[in-house]
Structures are given as C-alpha cells and as structure tokens.
C-alpha cells in the first residue's frame, strides 16, 4: 500500500515531553494516475494513426510499340472527361467534345462536394438509365495536364472512390482541341 509509515512518534525522549508530529505520509496518487492515463491515451492514439493511408491505383498494361494499336469503341454517352489545369482549375464535359451530350458542354468546376462530385454523382445514376444496361455505367476519363499537381490527381481519384464510378482511366494524351480548353482555362 502507498503508505509510508515513518516511525510512530519517536516515543519518549528524555525527560522533556517533546511531542513529535505524527506524520502520516500517505502519498496522493491522483496526479500520477492522471499523468499515466494521459500518456496511455497519447500512445494509443498515435500508434493507430501513424500508419500511413494509401490509395490503390491500377494502371493498364503499357502497350508495346510494335503491336498494332486497337482502338476500343466506347459509347460516347457513357464517357465523361475531366481535364485538370493549373491552379486547381478543372473542366469537364460529357460525351464528345465536338458534340457533347445534353447538359454536358465543357464546364468549369471546383473540387469537392459541391462542385465536381454533384456532376459525377448525377451521371453515375443517369448513364445506366440512358444505356439501359446496368453493367454499362459511367466511364470517367481523367486527363491531367502538364501544369496540374499531384494533389489534383489524388483529389479526382478520391472523387472516383467516393462516387463509386465503375470505370475510370488516367489518359495522358490530350488532343489539340482539348489543349485549347486547357489554355482557355489556364488564362
């Protein structure tokens, strides 16, 4: 027990009646326990949080140059293209650039729940209805321009994960027409 008994009173000393103080040295452990629990909490929280998070990314096999390129035709109603510019700017269009789908003209957007997410979510729902096949959902084509940052890329990929977009791809070649859009956006 946490009681330190420091001898009882010392008894009688000589003739003079000197009463020594009865000091009951009971150590107060409250502060010590407080500190211990504080440290426990700290270590508990830091151990579980220190593991870094990660995001899986699978890229398609790189084509060998000798192989003839086979273009896969995709229904234009299913594709939504997102182009990232500099300074966190972003533009998207639905369908082909020359002939966009209804309400799918190239539009500026912002990252986050009130910008890009609304548009993607809308299309995640609407595209299977248009194609009439559950398996033919939205395809998002992500085109990061040279000036876009890594944060932009992760933000868009995150958006894909949040919206549960069935198919998405990072495409690196930007057509001249799309380049015009990028220049317009970067102005």
């Amino acid at each position, binding site marked *: 027990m946490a009681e330190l008994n420091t001898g009882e009173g010392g008894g009688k000393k000589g003739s003079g009646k000197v009463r020594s103080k009865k000091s009951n040295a009971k150590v107060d452990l409250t502060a010590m326990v407080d500190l211990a629990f504080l440290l426990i909490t700290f270590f508990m929280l830091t151990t579980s949080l220190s593991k*870094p*998070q990660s995001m899986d990314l699978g890229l398609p096999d790189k084509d060998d140059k000798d192989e003839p390129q086979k273009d896969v035709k995709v229904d234009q109603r299913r594709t939504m293209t997102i182009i990232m510019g500099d300074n966190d700017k972003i533009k998207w269009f639905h369908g082909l650039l020359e002939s966009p789908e209804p309400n799918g003209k190239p539009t500026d957007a912002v990252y986050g729940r009130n910008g890009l997410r609304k548009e993607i979510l809308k299309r995640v729902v609407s595209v299977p209805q248009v194609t009439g096949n559950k398996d033919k959902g939205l395809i998002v084509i992500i085109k990061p321009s040279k000036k876009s940052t890594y944060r932009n890329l992760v933000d868009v990929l995150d958006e894909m994960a949040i919206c549960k977009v069935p198919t998405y791809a990072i495409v690196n070649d930007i057509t001249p027409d799309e380049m015009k859009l990028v220049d317009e956006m970067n102005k």
Partner: protein
Amino acid sequence: MGKVKMSKKSTSIDMTAMCDVAFLLLTFFILTATAKVPEPLPVDTPSSTVQTKLPETGLVTITVGKSEGKEQVFFGMKDRAIRSGALEYMSSKYKVDFTDKEKTEFELMDEFGVPVEGLKQLLAMKGSDRAKKGVQPGMPCDSINNQLQDWIQGARKANIENGGTKELQFAIKGDAKEEYPQIKRVMDILQDQKINSFNLVTGLRGKDY
C-alpha cells in the same frame, strides 16, 4: 437519548492498483509504438478518404518531392533482407564495392537519395547528419542515368531470391504540390517494368469533404 455515532469514512480511495494498471498499459504502449524515423525528404502528402493501410513488410517506397527548388526522388525499402540483396545487385552492376561494415550500415538505413557512387560517403556519415538538408541530392532517374530503375529491379530480384511468396509492393509518396509530370515519370519507370499496380500514399481526410 442514545447517540448514534456516525462512522467517519475516509474519502480518499486507494489508488495503488489503478496506478499499477495504468503504468502497465503505458509500458505496453511505449514498447509497441514504432518510433518515427526522421525522413530525409519530408513531403506533404495529399489527403484522401480512402482508408487502405500500407503493408508493413514487402514494401518499397518511392518519395517524390522538392527540396531547395530541385525535384528529388528518394528510395526506401522496408525489409532488411531486400535492402542487402538490392545493394548486392547495385554493387555488381555499377562496380562499386562495399565493405561488410558498410553493408550492415546500409541495412539499417530506411530511405536514401544518392547515386550509388555517393553511397559510400553517405554510409560513412552519422545517422543524424544524413537527414540534413543538401546532403542527399536525390536518386538519378532520367533517361541517361536511370538508377531508380536499377534499384527497383534489384529489390524485386532480392525479393524473389529470399523466397518471397508475395509480389513486392510499390508505394509512391508524392508531395501534394508536385506537378503531375514528375509523378508520371516515376509511374512510367514502374510501368516499364510491368508494375501496373501500386499505392499512392495519402493522408487522412475528414468525412465531410
């Protein structure tokens, strides 16, 4: 009247047992906590809502960041066996010999960013000096001198030689402000070796994003 004597109860509780338990737990957490190793190239990772944890073993981290206005790439391997195997591969490929002392020193190093020619000097330094700014210039990874590619190859070879049943995993840890072509370059190097699936290291983002 009979006086009812109220027994004087002490308000203080005996905390000894509680204290014992608290310190036992504290000791446990201190011992199990992994100490954070100082990073030679600190990067600010972008955040995401995806919560996949990185594996503890069988992982190679490629850090892409900017230091003193220069793009730098650092390379790190988690397993000691893979580290020594990769060093073996590099030393035979680039004709740089390492002493046994340097080899053991290398096995203890988590992340580094020097060309293999400068690795000797780096290993001679004290651990605390290595993380200093300007000591490590970054791993050469351009088309003329692509040592990053060789390190990746060495690490994969070492993984197979060690009888690793699992494929070595690769993680890219990029700075949020890094421009996309820099990240793309590292991805291309990985893809050149048919590594098409890798992890992007991200921080945690709040649910209301």
